């Protein structure tokens, strides 16, 4: 059934041991899985819901010897279906896939927009374990949408900076604006970011100007997840395998696409609009 010798790319079916509601209609699904317990922060899995779809989801908990989770924002058919699942239901899991974030840094800034916090929270936990306390900007439209607020508060205390577009809580404005302000105040050496691509593109350009290294977790259309089909291409990189985390050097290479265009499922370029 399980078996730790199983390769991560082998599909297995896992029962949901817990399903919890998060801020802003998001839902976390917990399941036991040896491969996920060995994942790196920033890696993702493919979640299969039979008859519906199979979609990429970052690991929002990497449960060493415990349960792991994904946290899902309902935006379409598959994600809405997944958000309705209950403990006891089963999902298919492939992965973990992709590269994950690189943990080397001294004074890191983390910038999460919306569900982007899913992959950045395990990152923050790993950094803390290594003795590095990141500054973590958790951005959302409004206070209700601030996901993992308690978990991050407990972990980072003062290091957590909240930002809401409407100012209902913390910094008033986009997470990227908040990040720019912080970058001017302190000498961060790395910015980790995950969230809307337009936000990440802004952060990348600002960090580039300041000579700060960026690690940004990207989204592209994932089909195979194992680096074969090419559907997730951004420039010469495959988001599913070379990514999802691209570094400054790679982002420079894909400057003409990042924040601007992506491929639709047929391989035609379309505009990036969020």
């Amino acid at each position, binding site marked *: 059934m399980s078996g730790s010798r199983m*390769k991560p*790319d*082998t*599909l297995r*079916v896992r029962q949901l041991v817990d399903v919890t509601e998060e801020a802003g209609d998001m839902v976390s699904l917990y399941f036991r899985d040896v491969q996920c317990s060995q994942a790196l922060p920033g890696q993702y899995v*493919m979640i*299969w819901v*039979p*008859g519906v*779809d*199979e*979609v990429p989801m970052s690991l929002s908990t990497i449960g060493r010897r415990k349960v792991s989770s994904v946290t899902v924002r309902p935006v379409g058919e598959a994600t809405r279906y997944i958000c309705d699942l209950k403990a006891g239901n*089963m999902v*298919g899991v*492939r992965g973990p896939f992709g590269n994950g974030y690189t943990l080397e840094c001294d004074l890191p800034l983390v910038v999460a927009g919306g569900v982007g916090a899913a992959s950045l929270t395990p990152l923050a936990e790993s950094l803390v374990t290594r003795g590095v306390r990141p500054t973590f900007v958790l951005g959302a439209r409004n206070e209700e949408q601030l996901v993992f607020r308690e978990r991050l508060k407990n972990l980072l205390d003062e290091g957590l900076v909240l930002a809401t577009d409407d100012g209902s809580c913390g910094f008033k404005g986009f997470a990227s604006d908040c990040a720019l302000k912080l970058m001017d105040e302190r000498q961060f050496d790395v910015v980790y970011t995950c969230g809307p691509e337009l936000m990440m593109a802004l952060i990348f350009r600002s960090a580039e100007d300041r000579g700060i290294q960026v690690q940004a977790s990207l989204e592209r259309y994932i*089909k*195979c*997840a*194992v*680096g*074969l*089909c*090419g*559907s997730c*291409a951004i*420039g*010469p990189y*495959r988001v599913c395998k070379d990514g999802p985390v691209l570094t400054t050097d790679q982002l420079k290479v894909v400057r003409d696409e990042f924040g601007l265009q992506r*491929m*639709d*499922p*047929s*391989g*035609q370029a379309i505009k990036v609009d969020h």
Partner: protein
Amino acid sequence: MSQLSLAVDIAGLRLRNPTMNAAGVLGISGPLLKRVYEGGAGAVVTKSLGPVPREGHHNPTLVTVEGGVLNAMGLPNPGADYFVDVIRWLKGEGVPVVASFFGATIEEFRDVACTLSDAGVDALELNCSCPNVVEEMGMLGADCLNTEAVTAAVKEVAKTPVFVKLSPNVTDISEIARGAERGGADAITACNTLIGMAVDVDMRRPILANTTGGLSGPALKPVALRCVWEIAKTVDIPIIGCGGVTNWRDAVEFLLCGASAVEIGTAVMERGVEVFGMVVEGIRSYLEVNGFKEVKDIVGLAHET
């Protein structure tokens, strides 16, 4: 370094070495194909292109099985017209391009071939063997008369060599190869994937959204070698081997069975785009160690025993 040459000639198309990516593997993106070339391939093969854009099947489109993978991408592609610019860009970058293509009717095959040929590709690869869209589009390749007809139609408009890629899911592949040769094919690519399926016992249903899919990777290799072997005994045109090539030994096996070059697909999953360079270097040392001067010297050698 000896006087050894890795260059091959396939129906007049001269390549720096006998490796290419398999159609559908990384071929939907120009920059990825350029990376394949930089990874060491002798030429690159595009995703199979059709007359209009296609999104392909729903996910799951791929599942790993013992010894390989099953895929049912469903021929997603942006359409031949759209890809003309990608091809021109690749050619501008100095990359030899083989355009894989398909259609639902003989007319569509011809039209798409015409578009791609005009775009300046170095060769065309006629895919009449995709197992994942059979019901939709008919299995043109399953019949040697069809294969002959579609090949002949494409040859009428093509300004470049035409490779015809065959399916192993047939009773007698050499008969179909003969049909392609009669139709004027310049080379045969053998082979596409075996039709298979995977089922999950917990969900109690097929895993792929399309139910069935194509089996590729090491599991396919013995069948693909046999296809190349049989076709080599039957036709006089060159053969491009494809199916489960993971390392140089596999590649040499295909060459010994009668292939003039190989395409590599599934191995990219485990070995990355560097697989092309590694296979090429392995072929080089094999030739060197065994005292051969060029790739051609070992093509079909296993038949001579």
